[in-house]
């Protein structure tokens, strides 16, 4: 098993005809992912790449194809509405790639979703990948914008806010011969659907995941909460890394959520919480895989 998605998961893409959505829809198809539907209001009845049916609404797409997961590539002013449409259609999972959704919109989405069966990942995230067994991990489930070929099927779970730092960790693992169960990018916004803690719990319960890399960054206290839980309950070795130790306070470092304010959300506090929880913290982003392997295998 993996977490959240398997190579058999049927996904639909909201915003499949936009340039960004279309590009990544094609890459997911090439990777062997079950992209079964696209949604673009007004373009229902057309085909994407001569093979994927396009629908006007998510509800129609779900009814016709049995898709259970949606990925949102819709521009920021319309993205919150697109997420709500996915939730209303009873999907298991909505993955919002869109960067730049107003925080007030996400506050409403998050409160609307309370008690619903849908999980949200993102927004402003790279998505997730469960690698396949083919060459360059072909045949896996690629949802979002991560490069598929850097993955390898295996037993390490990766969770991170940042896209490129996830790719760094994955590539380090793959080139050292360690594959991944699932890699999840939870996104860099201050209000998001799934936290580090949520993903850690899933990895802890997943029999295929044997070890975990957790990558965080300055801002908020999500990493501290995950570490406190891991100290008590996590049965699996974890390596961690926190980005932003040199970031000046009060400045947003690219990600809307990456800000140290009022002395809260510093890298030092997060690293201390992780070390206290027995997580092996990598001193640099170049040593994330090596730190995990040492901690896990003792070599």
């Amino acid at each position: 098993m993996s977490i959240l998605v398997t190579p058999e998961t049927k996904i639909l893409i909201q915003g499949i005809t936009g340039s960004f959505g279309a590009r990544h829809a094609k890459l997911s198809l090439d990777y062997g992912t079950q992209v079964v539907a696209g949604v673009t209001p007004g373009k229902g009845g057309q085909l994407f790449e001569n093979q994927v049916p396009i629908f006007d609404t998510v509800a129609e797409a779900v009814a016709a194809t049995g898709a259970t997961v949606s990925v949102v590539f819709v521009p920021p002013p319309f993205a919150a509405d697109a997420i709500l449409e996915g939730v209303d259609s009873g999907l298991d999972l909505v993955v919002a790639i869109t960067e730049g959704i107003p925080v007030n919109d996400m506050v409403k989405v998050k409160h609307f979703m309370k008690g619903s069966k849908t999980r949200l990942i993102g927004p402003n995230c790279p998505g997730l990948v469960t690698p396949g067994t083919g060459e360059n991990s072909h045949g896996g489930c690629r949802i979002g914008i991560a490069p598929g070929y850097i993955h390898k099927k295996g037993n390490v779970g990766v969770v991170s806010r940042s896209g490129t730092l996830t790719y760094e960790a994955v590539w380090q693992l793959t080139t050292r011969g360690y594959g991944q169960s699932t890699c999840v990018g939870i996104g860099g916004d201050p209000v998001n659907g799934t936290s580090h803690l949520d993903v850690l719990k899933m990895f802890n319960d997943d029999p295929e995941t044997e070890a975990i890399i957790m990558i965080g960054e300055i801002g908020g206290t999500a990493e501290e909460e995950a570490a406190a839980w891991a100290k008590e309950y996590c049965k699996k070795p974890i390596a961690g890394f926190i980005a932003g130790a040199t970031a000046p306070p009060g400045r947003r470092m690219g990600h809307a959520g990456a800000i140290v304010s009022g002395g809260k959300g510093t890298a030092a506090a997060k690293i201390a919480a992780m070390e206290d929880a027995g997580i092996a913290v990598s001193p640099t982003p170049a040593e994330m895989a090596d730190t995990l392997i040492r901690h896990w295998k003792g070599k």
Partner: protein
Amino acid sequence: MNIHEYQARELFAKFHVATQPGSVAFTPDEASQVAAKLGGKIVVKAQIHAGGRGKGTFKNGFKGGVHLCDTPDEAKDLATNMLGQVLVTHQTGPEGKEVGKIFVGQAVDITRELYFAILLDRATSAPVVIASTEGGVDIEAVAEHSPEKILRLAVNPFLGLQPYQTRLIAAKLGLTGKLMTQASKLFTNLYRLFLESDCSMVEVNPLVVTAQGELLALDAKFNFDDNALYRQPAIVAMRDVTEEDPREVAASEYALNYIGLDGNIACLVNGAGLAMATMDIIQYAGGSPANFLDVGGGATKEQVAAAFRIILGDPNVKGILVNIFGGIMDCNIIATGIVEAARETSLAIPLVVRLEGNNVAAGKKTLAESGLSLVTGDDILDAARKIVAAVAAH
């Protein structure tokens, strides 16, 4: 995005939040006119995006960016001493900020100073109100030393701040009788301002009770959600680029995410997380980062060239570290962009490039055959050590 104090007061007026009467002035004559209109005791305040103005010093020797006076002529003299002069405070750095405008307001006879803020609480993903009887001081210090003096109150995002909640806060602040009615109205209007202007924080410090029994929002700090600026044209119109780092202004024109720092090793990276981590690793390797720069996932050659020009426009920069993990992006396109930018800018300082990812072999070949004196790094740590060593030797 930050705004000036006088702009904050304009926002207060628009949302009927009671504040001190006054107006902005751009010349000494305007200052005198505003003072004459207000009458009575006057306060004159330099308008810059930095705190500590009252205790600051102008480079012309004039002390203090905040003064009280009694007549329009005195207001005019104060304005003459401030306008066009450079004010240095503990937040501006030694270079200071030029004062282009001043706020001229009615002086307020304060009897009590309180604290009131609305901000987005990340832990609950909802707005939260923070209030305290300890106003006019550093609220973080109050939170640390006397947390019992701080009230935190969660707001339901669908309902908004309810009238009973405004009375609860007023009661905790000791605002009774007519002051409770005023407080209730002020808090309600401030919440509307917070929501309708897409703020991530509105902090009123101090909120004051005057000798005349009025409750006024005397000074305020606003943070706006950058993601929502597309639907806030009135807020965007308040942007004052003369207050921003010129390097950051130039970068924003090319949709580059740049933040200037004090070090001497510039970095150019794709992805915000990796860009932060690259700054960190420069420091880990013994150097000092000159900036944060995220060129994004789909950077063009033009953006890379613009990034090089901005980096090289900083006289402190003594070396450049390029760190690209080209997952989907073709590394050879990036390499070509780097070579062109280096040639175009006649690069004369050390450059270390670490490329990884899609089509990396072709990218490395392009760099090697460019004839440029650049160094390639095997991984991020190797690259960071090489640029630190090169800058030390240069």
